[in-house]
């Protein structure tokens, strides 16, 4: 039987495919490209900051570099990363379906993503934009002399890709589950993708509207955010964060979903407290919509509003904590294997916990006043988005790589990369907490000399991190063409995707399976020992 990779070899067979697995690979290649563009910009930033006033690149180039880094990493890597690659590839496999509900819409989503990415890159690199990914008004509307509208256009187009992907994932989860695959038997990754898809559908339109208003203000001088014409710059911040805070959960929920799969498989245990973890997923997705104002505690918002957003932020931390405790309990009396995906998974938990508790620091009003807009915030969200999401993404890549490509990669190299990334990450971002606490503001091209030691450490860590990310690029590329063939279930994992060949046939399941067991049904019979 032909695998989905053998269903056609020409360029057409890829560019006009409606197979969710092929589209997942299209996304994989595209976002890998964007990841290294964003990484290149990060390299420039860290190089410039080795010396307090290096002037290695000009102030304007520096501002453009962090704008490239943030826009590309947020919208063209992190947001699509796990949902568009692994959501696409795995959702139908995990629920026992032959494809997503709307295969052609799925292909359209990828084209929109690429169109948006091309336009945004054009604006960012050929034109140059210096607003940061936050586009704060009135800087973005009136004062920035750069290609703001081009980048806004790119992001809005990519936003439609997000919305359509979200729609596809939600409808698929509702309508295409195999017989017997009831909600409480779904792998928790599916719950996570489902919750994420809801956020994609509900939050992304707000971003599109907001960015269109910025463009209208900039081109047409509407003055919506300009106090000279009765507009309000804070209105923009409310609208922007109404999307952009839930967007953090778009990045993190799927990552948590991946961790459920890794922790259960590599400890050979059912997840501890399935219902609590599933409920926590939905809890984060809903409360996550109510905390946007915690980005604005010094912006000039009312004290009362600050109280409300602060307490809600403490509340949204609860379900995240619940998950960490449940993962820990899952290992108890398990049979833990430190395979490469598991190392990435364990790394995720450690870094996510640090990122999470520092989130509580930032939720604490009086403390936030000191550290907001400093490197403390930069460290915090990199712990969540890189330490968290990117680690989980790498874990997912190593876990499902044999299924996707039908090839194994060298295990030792995978483990080495997991350790390197973990160590490089800590060295890069721990000093940044300290820098923020000491009072170094973010987005600084030039900084006071007493901060140099920590900046040098951070840049040194960044080079280790870069190596950690280049390594998998090399051995996974090698594996894709020369790796030894993968068995159907190399990890001995549970889940429908492991019951079919690697790589899967075009139609996934020759016969639609009937599900009669809970998720992660790792046999208890062999757990005596």
């Amino acid at each position, binding site marked *: 039987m032909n695998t989905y990779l053998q269903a056609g070899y020409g360029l057409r067979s890829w560019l006009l495919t409606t197979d969710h697995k092929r589209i997942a690979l299209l996304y994989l290649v595209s976002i890998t490209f964007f990841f290294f563009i964003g990484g290149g910009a990060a390299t420039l930033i860290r190089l410039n900051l080795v010396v307090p006033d290096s002037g290695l690149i000009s102030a304007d180039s520096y*501002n453009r570099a962090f704008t490239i880094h943030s826009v590309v990493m947020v919208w063209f890597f992190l947001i699509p990363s796990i949902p568009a690659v692994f959501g696409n590839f795995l959702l139908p496999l995990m629920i026992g379906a032959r494809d997503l509900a709307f295969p052609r819409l799925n292909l359209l989503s990828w084209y929109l993503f690429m169109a948006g990415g091309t336009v945004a890159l054009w604006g960012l690199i050929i034109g140059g934009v210096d607003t940061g990914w936050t586009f704060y008004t009135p800087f973005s509307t009136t004062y920035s002399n750069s290609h703001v509208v081009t980048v806004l256009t790119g992001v809005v187009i990519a936003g439609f890709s997000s919305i359509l992907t979200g729609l596809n994932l939600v409808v698929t989860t509702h309508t295409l589950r195999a017989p017997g695959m009831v909600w409480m038997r779904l792998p928790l990754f599916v719950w996570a993708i489902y919750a994420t898809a809801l956020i994609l559908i509900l939050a992304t339109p707000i971003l599109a509207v907001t960015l269109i208003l910025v463009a209208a203000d900039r081109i047409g001088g509407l003055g919506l955010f300009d106090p000279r014409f009765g507009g309000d*710059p804070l209105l923009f911040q409310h609208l922007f964060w109404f999307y952009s805070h839930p967007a953090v959960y778009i990045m993190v929920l799927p990552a948590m979903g991946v961790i459920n799969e890794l922790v259960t498989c590599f400890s050979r245990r059912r997840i501890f407290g399935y219902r609590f973890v599933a409920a926590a997923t939905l809890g984060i997705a809903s409360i996550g919509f109510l905390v946007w104002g915690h980005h604005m505690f010094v912006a000039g918002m009312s004290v009362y509003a600050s*109280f409300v957003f602060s307490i809600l932020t403490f509340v949204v931390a609860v379900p995240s904590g619940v998950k960490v405790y449940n993962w820990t309990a899952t290992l108890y009396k398990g049979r833990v294997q430190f395979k490469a995906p598991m190392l990435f998974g364990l790394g995720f938990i450690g870094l996510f916990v640090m990122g999470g508790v520092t989130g509580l620091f930032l939720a*604490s009003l009086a403390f936030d006043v000191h550290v907001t807009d400093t490197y403390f915030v930069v460290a915090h969200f990199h712990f969540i988005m890189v330490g968290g999401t990117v680690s989980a993404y790498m874990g997912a890549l190593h876990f499902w790589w044999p299924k996707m490509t039908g090839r194994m990669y060298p295990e030792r190299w995978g483990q080495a990369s997991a350790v390197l990334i973990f160590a490089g990450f800590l060295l890069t971002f721990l000093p940044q907490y300290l820098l923020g606490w*000491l009072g170094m503001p973010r987005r600084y091209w030039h900084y006071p000399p007493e901060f140099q030691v920590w900046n040098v450490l951070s840049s040194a860590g960044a080079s280790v991190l870069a190596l950690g990310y280049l390594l998998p690029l090399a051995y996974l590329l090698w594996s894709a063409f020369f790796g030894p063939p993968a068995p159907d279930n190399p990890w001995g994992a549970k889940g429908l995707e492991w019951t079919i060949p690697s790589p899967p046939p075009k139609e996934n399941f020759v016969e639609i399976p009937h599900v009669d067991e809970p998720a992660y049904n790792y046999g208890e019979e062999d757990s005596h020992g």
Partner: protein
Amino acid sequence: MAMSGIAFWPVAASSYAAQIDWLFVALVVVTGAISVPAITALVWFAVKYREGNPADRRQPPQRKVWLEIGWTTVPFVLTLAVFVWAAALYRDHADLPAEGLEISVVAKQWMFKFQHPGGQRELDELHVPAGQNVKLLMTSQDVIHSLFLPALRIKQDVLPGRVTALWFKADRPGVYHLHCAEYCGTNHSLMGTRFVVMRPEEYQAWLTHAGEDTALAAEGGRLFREVGCSGCHENRNSPVRAPNLCGVFGSSVALADGRVVVADEAYIRDSILLPGRDIVAGFKNDMPNFTGKLTEAQVQALVAYVKSLALAGDEVGRVQLPPNGLAAGSVCRGAVR
């Protein structure tokens, strides 16, 4: 500032800052209490139950409702205590005290302009007396900025079209940082420099001296018209095109030969005495050389005047002004006359 070596703890220059530091300690303790046990257990379980290691693996639990409820509620209640403390500190500091020294702040790309109650102005640096309430009433002429005083653990965004306020009582005389914390464009990281907390008597002396600067600038303004600078630099109908000097001081100037220089005292001085050296891009070398025509004192007065033009700002009417009105005047608004 003035720290050398490796810094771990930021200097605290007020009792409020010390309270924030205690809050920080509490946060470390509480978040440690809820996360260290989990991470410890994670590592411990991973090692103890690693594959191949003999261990008792009989009847592992699938769920324990009391455990789930416990680790849902206990951490939340613990962190709630921190929320209350942090919120109370924030609230107490949100209200401006009735009494206090009122300093107006106007932010613009890329400088902070301060005006003391006696009319003394300063650029980027802020001098304040220790032991006294100081209220900053702030507005922006262009984009959003944020005044950040790390030694006091406070910051507040500065918005166009609005007056926001920040207050503090610094206890410890010294020189600290003053930063812009809200990204505002090209020279965001160069905005703001020093925050100087002085003993009250030193502050008085400083005010007097700064007052003299103001008088010097007024003298310079008179000279500016007398020796004819205003004929080209202020008169838009002049046949000779000369750069407008409003807001020049402290800004980056692009020169005809492609260099970009910062217009500091030395630059202004050179421009008067050696006008052919640094020609501003887009202008001809039309300026007469004033070497030998002005006394040293007169040059100083002119430099002080040009400096004051920057402090005064270049556009008025766009901003709502703080109560004691920083910028007021004509052509180059607020110029000292």
